[in-house]
């Protein structure tokens, strides 16, 4: 692409993001604020694509605008009718405001300057290290290599954070009431969209080893499949029984940790895989992480414990 065209594109995308953010934050109706936020996610995905971050663009398209949008719309639905809060603002003391702005401005500017110095072409950036070690990582996609091999600690803890959020949501009580059974249009749309989502999730999981994709994107798509089945209100669908769902949800963190400990037992450090096995182990971890992310996102979308978890006393269906 020519440079002029790129520059115009950059300015247009930046303007879009800015206008959408302001409109979403200050829209009078909350429903419209959420619609604007979902469009904001779409434009963000385009910005990631423009900045050559296809992995992030995929994740943003699936999680940022998709699952987060569905979550927010569900939260909007269970508000009390009549409580439509406009965009009203508080007026705190100006000292508080000044200090807050100074802190955020300084922090962000400093971190940006730091990153800029670190990552600019002359500095011995981390990217060279990644490229040099990529052949030993077991995968060919550098982002997957960083996530599941070089910085596997981060990803393990990230799964633990997701799991912690899930525990928090489950502790808050039963799930939201189910939506009413949908009409024929939605039912048919869901009927062919669900298998397509599942197939695409499997494809992204597999392709993540050498091209953009991976466990997060795949997990988010699987969760989206669950969410639309839930939204269709079909009474013949249900989640796996309580114990299986729990096992799936904990599986991502669990298998990751077991593999890490096994690597330790074989003489390495925690999460230091043997080089020959790295590809297989990463795929194993990713499969369980995908299922676990999907289960967790779906459970937090339900907003609490599924109904069939409570019906345990009679021992009928656990």
């Amino acid at each position, binding site marked *: 692409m020519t440079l002029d065209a790129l520059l115009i594109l950059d300015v247009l995308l930046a303007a879009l993001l800015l206008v959408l953010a302001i409109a979403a934050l200050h829209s009078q109706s909350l429903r419209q604020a959420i619609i604007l936020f979902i469009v904001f996610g779409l434009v963000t995905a385009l910005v990631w694509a423009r900045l050559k971050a296809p992995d992030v663009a995929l994740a943003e398209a699936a999680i940022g605008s998709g699952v987060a949008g569905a979550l927010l719309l569900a939260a909007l639905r269970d508000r009390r009718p009549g409580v439509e809060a406009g965009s009203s603002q508080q007026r705190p003391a100006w000292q508080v405001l000044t200090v807050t702005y100074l802190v955020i401005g300084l922090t962000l500017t400093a971190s940006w300057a730091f990153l800029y110095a670190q990552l600019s072409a002359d500095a011995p950036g981390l990217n060279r290290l990644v490229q040099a070690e990529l052949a030993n990582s077991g995968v060919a996609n550098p982002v997957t290599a960083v996530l599941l091999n070089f910085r596997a600690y981060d990803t393990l803890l990230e799964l633990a954070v997701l799991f912690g959020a899930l525990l928090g949501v489950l502790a808050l009580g039963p799930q939201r009431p189910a939506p009413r059974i949908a009409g024929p249009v*939605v039912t048919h749309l869901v009927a062919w969209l669900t298998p*397509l989502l599942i197939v695409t999730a499997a494809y992204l999981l597999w392709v993540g080893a050498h091209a953009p994709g991976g466990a997060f994107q795949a997990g988010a798509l699987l969760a989206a499949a669950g969410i639309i089945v839930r939204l269709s209100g079909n009474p013949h669908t249900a989640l796996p029984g309580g114990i299986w769902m729990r096992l799936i949800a904990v599986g991502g963190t669990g298998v990751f940790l077991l593999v890490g400990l096994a690597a330790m037992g074989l003489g390495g450090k925690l999460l230091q895989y043997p080089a020959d096995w790295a590809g297989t182990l990463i795929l194993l971890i990713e499969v369980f992480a995908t299922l676990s992310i999907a289960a967790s996102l779906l459970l937090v979308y339900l907003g609490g414990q599924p109904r069939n978890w409570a019906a345990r006393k009679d021992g009928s269906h656990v």
Partner: protein
Amino acid sequence: MIDLLSAIFILGGLFFFIAGTLGLIRLPDTLCRLHAVTKADNLGLGLLVLGLALQLGDLLLMLKVLLIWALVLAASAAGSQLIARHVLDERGDRS
């Protein structure tokens, strides 16, 4: 030859995209806009996809791109039906 064909398709696609947006701005009524916008947009994306598919040179990628168009078509058909019903519901409440 293929370049020329794909250029024609891409430019045609852009034309319909712009037509759709103009429709969104100019037409007076939600149902009119729905009628015009969804048709123009899907045609625009279809032509764009055809033009781009000719440039890909890989059968699997071509099929994937065509699948994207089919998906958008089906989703927007269902979506416009749902939006139209929503509009009619709103009108029914008011009258």
